[in-house]
């Protein structure tokens, strides 16, 4: 299998702008080529668009808009982890020799149809994600006797970190009091516990070893990939206090990269809601069950940006199709020592955790210098 790495990336600020999906898509692509003038657009032989937008044929449209004629062009949709699914597809095209350079571009509008999974009728009238996250939150608080205050530290930490990220939707800091007094959505969920839908785009180019060595001054390699889909419906989860698909995905990714979880220096994980961060920390193996919130507090108290340095989904906003790509860009910047005030010292190995629909599907990527 050919080695696959990151050739370049482009990302623009996440906003609440009401723009056409095609314009959103082009924003980060333009940024990518502006920052990487050595890349010849005509060498891109595959274009993958990651989005939940209902517009059709977006990859050929994007290709035409940037004046290229790739061999492969199509969209990829898998709700909230469309972005990392697209990166895995790009990896596969390159590893198999079907393409040498793949542009992966994710974009979403603030009013994305990907927020609600209509098919999941077992949820009855409770289809909005705030309901599954309320069930997860209640179960987690009940099982491990976790207070609302302790859980709210996730939002406090991630907003603080997002403040150092010029592309984040949020640029405000909040106290525990602010979080637990923010608008009550359900008995177990406050507004500041939620990532917000937004308009955003992120693009990345993956390439063969030869392309990466030629075009990137600081090559970053994808050395581990793990994915698992356990169901589509929320109610089929075997546990509401852990993420089964995440456990299986991280196991596969670590084996592929020949690493253990203790080797990981920096992480972007899928904090769609506050409870998701401790659940992911525990399911990935960073914390014992029920202690993820203690790690969150420790990181906050020591100003350690190891987990969700860009501010996670809660701080950055969650433009579904762009999220997994934005997470991957952050880890790339961290490993390139290029993350400014968010920089985690001596980061050599990074991990991305991106999931869909109440953790029924997870992707884990491992990146290395």
């Amino acid at each position, binding site marked *: 299998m050919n080695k696959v790495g990151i050739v370049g990336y482009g990302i623009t600020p996440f906003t609440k702008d009401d723009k056409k999906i095609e314009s959103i898509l082009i924003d980060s692509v333009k940024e990518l080529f502006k920052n990487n003038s050595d890349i010849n657009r005509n060498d891109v032989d595959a274009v993958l668009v990651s989005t939940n937008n209902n517009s059709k044929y977006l990859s050929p449209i994007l290709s035409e808009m940037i004046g290229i004629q790739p061999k492969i062009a199509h969209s990829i949709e898998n709700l909230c982890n469309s972005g990392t699914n697209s990166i895995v597809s790009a990896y596969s095209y390159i590893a198999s020799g079907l393409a040498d350079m793949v542009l992966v571009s994710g974009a979403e509008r603030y009013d994305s149809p990907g927020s609600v999974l209509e098919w999941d*009728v077992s949820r009855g009238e409770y289809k909005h994600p705030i309901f599954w996250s*309320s*069930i997860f939150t*209640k179960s987690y608080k009940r099982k491990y006797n976790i207070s609302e205050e302790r859980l709210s530290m996730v939002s406090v930490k991630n907003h603080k970190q997002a403040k150092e990220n010029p592309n984040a939707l949020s640029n405000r800091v909040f106290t525990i009091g602010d979080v637990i007094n923010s608008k009550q959505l359900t*008995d177990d969920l406050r507004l500041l516990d939620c990532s917000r839908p937004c308009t955003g785009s992120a693009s990345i180019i993956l390439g063969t070893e030869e392309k990466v060595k030629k075009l990137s001054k600081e090559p970053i390699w994808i050395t581990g990939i793990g994915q698992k889909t356990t169901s589509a419906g929320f109610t*089929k989860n075997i546990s509401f206090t852990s993420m089964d698909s995440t456990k299986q995905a991280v196991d596969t990714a670590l084996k592929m990269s020949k690493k253990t979880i203790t080797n990981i220096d920096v992480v972007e994980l899928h904090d769609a809601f506050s409870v998701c961060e401790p659940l992911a920390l525990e399911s990935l193996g960073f914390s014992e069950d029920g202690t993820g919130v203690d790690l969150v507090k420790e990181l906050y108290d020591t100003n350690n940006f190891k987990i969700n340095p860009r501010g996670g989904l809660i701080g950055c906003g969650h433009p579904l199709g762009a999220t997994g790509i934005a997470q991957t860009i952050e880890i790339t910047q961290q490993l390139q020592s290029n993350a400014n005030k968010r920089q985690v010292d001596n980061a050599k190995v990074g991990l991305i955790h991106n999931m869909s629909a109440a953790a029924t599907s997870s992707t884990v990527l491992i990146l290395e210098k």
Partner: protein
Amino acid sequence: MSFETKLNDGIFCIPKCDDCKKIVWPPADLCNHCFGNVSLKEGEFEGKIIEFSSKENLYFCLVEFEKTFRIIATILKTPDVGQSVKISKCGIIGGDYFFEVN
């Protein structure tokens, strides 16, 4: 008669495979275990509350039936985890299924 037609009439049925007898959930025309045909069983099914929360003082709970499948249902009285409940109302409003238990 489909699960949805029955549900629309306010009747909750459990879809079961004619061949392997397994419950097929979410309701489908085809068994996801053996691809057999599916028939609907009517009855007073008892479920168990797995978890609950509330929105604007209205409780919603995750209920497990036949130790096999779960739904999210409304419950009017304060629920308890482990409590036994039965479907008291169900149907389709504006394209969305709804379930109420007590």
